[in-house]
């Protein structure tokens, strides 16, 4: 009996042993940094409302920093603002604004450096070069932040959420706009990007390089200069995302370059110049997606191999599929194409004649862009019909042998 009582008595003293305190911080000259220096490990700093004109604030011990009614940390366009170099720091409820601009260093509003288990949530980052910069971080959560800037060109701007050489990140519920790239991943593995909105960025909504085994789901990427780019990665899963209204001569819903063993499911590609662009990809499953009112639904280059396109809906696209060669090592099956005019005699829901999704005019206009001015004229209609009877220009290997008669309900 004695050990039990002893343990209970000891447990009663436990809260007193942790020594964690809540400290209120008020605006003043370097008051935030002084408070951090004075605080002990595990303390909570409650930043009171007001403007803190401080920069290069270093959080180098395990602290919880909570802003009360969004206190403003203003870097006054001089330098970087908050550095987090300790594990398990929680930073929330701050409005961090006006970093400096430099071509030597990447000026970030909140920088997490060589730390694990950090949580950065519910912050607002306005008018910074880089919003949240994760460098060699692990198991870190970036959640529900609002990150805005007014970048005008690619050279003088940075990324909203920038992650470099990290692992096991969770980026969720953030709203990023007006940066160079909304979310930037380089050498980031086994991470999840979920429920973010990335819009009106100068270059990419999401830029993704050398980052293996990552998942991104239920994000929305719209009106970005060039859409989303995913390059040199493998094991990427993309589900339930919306790619909307990315317009321009190099704008893509998603651009995939040298991607292997990945999945693209249940996404919606709406009103993009090119919905899905694929180059040198291997073994990608593209299924259950909606391609609606895009210029080109899919552009799949002849360097892609082993990909399957199944159960997608193609509606209202100017051109469904385009390619640049005659070899086709990918497989299309069971898609719904609104331009399909075949028949289904045995009523099994699958068309009896194959559908050739590459339109002859997309090939012609690829060769001679000016010819696009004659698109949808009676003459080009005749050309399409002739090509259907005797295919000579379009790649005849690119076809869907089992086109659906009815739209998939996705």
């Amino acid at each position, binding site marked *: 009996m004695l050990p039990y009582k002893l343990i209970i008595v000891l447990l009663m003293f436990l809260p007193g042993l942790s020594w964690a305190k809540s400290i209120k911080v008020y605006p003043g000259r370097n008051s935030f940094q002084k408070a951090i220096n004075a605080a002990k490990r595990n303390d909570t700093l409650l930043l009171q409302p007001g403007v803190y004109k401080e920069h290069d604030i270093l959080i180098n011990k395990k602290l919880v920093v909570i802003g009360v009614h969004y206190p403003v940390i203003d870097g006054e366009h001089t330098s970087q603002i908050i550095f987090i170099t300790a594990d398990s720091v929680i930073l929330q409820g701050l409005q961090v604004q006006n970093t400096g601009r430099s071509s030597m260093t990447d000026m970030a509003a909140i920088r997490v450096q060589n730390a694990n288990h950090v949580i950065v949530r519910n912050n607002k980052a306005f008018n910074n070069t880089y919003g949240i910069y994760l460098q060699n971080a692990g198991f870190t959560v970036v959640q529900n932040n609002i990150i805005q800037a007014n970048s005008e060109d690619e050279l003088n701007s940075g990324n909203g959420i920038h992650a470099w050489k990290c692992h096991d990140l969770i980026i969720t519920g953030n709203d990023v706009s007006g940066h160079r790239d909304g979310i930037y991943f380089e050498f980031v593995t086994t991470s999840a990007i979920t429920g973010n909105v990335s819009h009106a960025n100068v270059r990419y909504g999401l830029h993704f390089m050398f980052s293996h085994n990552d998942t991104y789901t239920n994000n929305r990427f719209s009106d970005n200069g060039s859409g989303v780019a995913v390059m040199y990665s493998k094991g990427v899963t993309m589900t339930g995302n919306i790619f909307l209204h990315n*317009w*321009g*001569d190099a*704008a893509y819903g998603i651009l995939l370059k040298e991607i292997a063993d990945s999945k693209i499911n249940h996404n919606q590609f709406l*009103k*993009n*110049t*090119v919905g899905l662009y694929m180059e040198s990809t291997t073994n990608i499953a593209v299924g259950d997606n909606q391609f609606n*009112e*895009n*210029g*080109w639904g899919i552009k799949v280059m002849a360097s892609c191999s082993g990909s399957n396109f199944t159960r997608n809906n193609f*509606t*209202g696209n*100017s*051109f469904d599929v385009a390619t640049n060669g005659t070899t086709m090592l990918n497989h299309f099956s069971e898609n719904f194409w*609104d331009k399909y005019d075949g028949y289904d005699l045995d009523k099994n829901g699958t068309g009896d004649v194959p559908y050739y999704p590459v339109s002859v005019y997309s090939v012609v*206009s690829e*060769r*001679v*862009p*000016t*010819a*696009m*001015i*004659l*698109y*949808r*004229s*009676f*003459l*080009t*209609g005749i050309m399409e019909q002739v090509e259907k009877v005797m295919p000579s220009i379009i790649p005849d290997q690119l076809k869907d042998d089992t086109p659906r008669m009815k739209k998939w309900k996705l």
Partner: protein
Amino acid sequence: MKTIIKYVLLDLLRNRVILFYTIILAVLAVSVLGIDDNPTKGLLSLLNITLLFVPLITILFSTIYFFNAIEFTELLLSQPIKRNKVLLAEYSALTVSLSTAYAVGIGIPLLLLVSGIESFILTLIGILLTFVFSSLALLIFVKFRDKTKGIGIAIAIALFFTLLFDGFLLAFIYSFSDYPIDQAVVGIIAFNPIDLARVLMLLHLDVAVLMGYSGALFKKFLGSATGSIFSIACIMLWIIVPLLLSVRIFNRKDL
């Protein structure tokens, strides 16, 4: 002038062809839009109908009507009325009835079933093309004395603008594709009212794909409002110039 317009309109109503034309257009529009739940597809079919049949039917019907009404015209001219007033009155009555037919037949089903700027543009295109081709028909009427010859020329003009012109243009684009011909092509387009109408529609239906082509033509001209304004202005010229020409010729014509 108002009285003449009134009587020509009454005559056209009695003619029943206009009524028939309206019904056919309406049936086409409703069936094409009703078949598919995809409105873009229906719009495209209606665009094809508009670009192919509206010019042909308008120019043929107008030419035949003008030639048939020649006695009525001569009768009117024996009265103290100005020649150009008679001609313009007949022209306006005809275009008003034909474009009303189009607006009722295609425009109303379209605006009811597929709302949006595209439907409005398509209706506008049809009406503008009606004006252009009846204006051309008037020119044929004042230029040629022989009815058969006039009808032949009318068919030739319609076919030229719907088919041949595009063929020549495509051949031109192909053979000079190595040269910067973008502006020249835009210039050539201005010589075909049907192409102008089609480009106007293209600018609203396929912007996404047009943005995909690099080059000044698609970015600056077609990508902005300039393209639409240019097209509409050129179509207006296509209405006004033949009309003025025919009035001029008619005033000096020895009837």
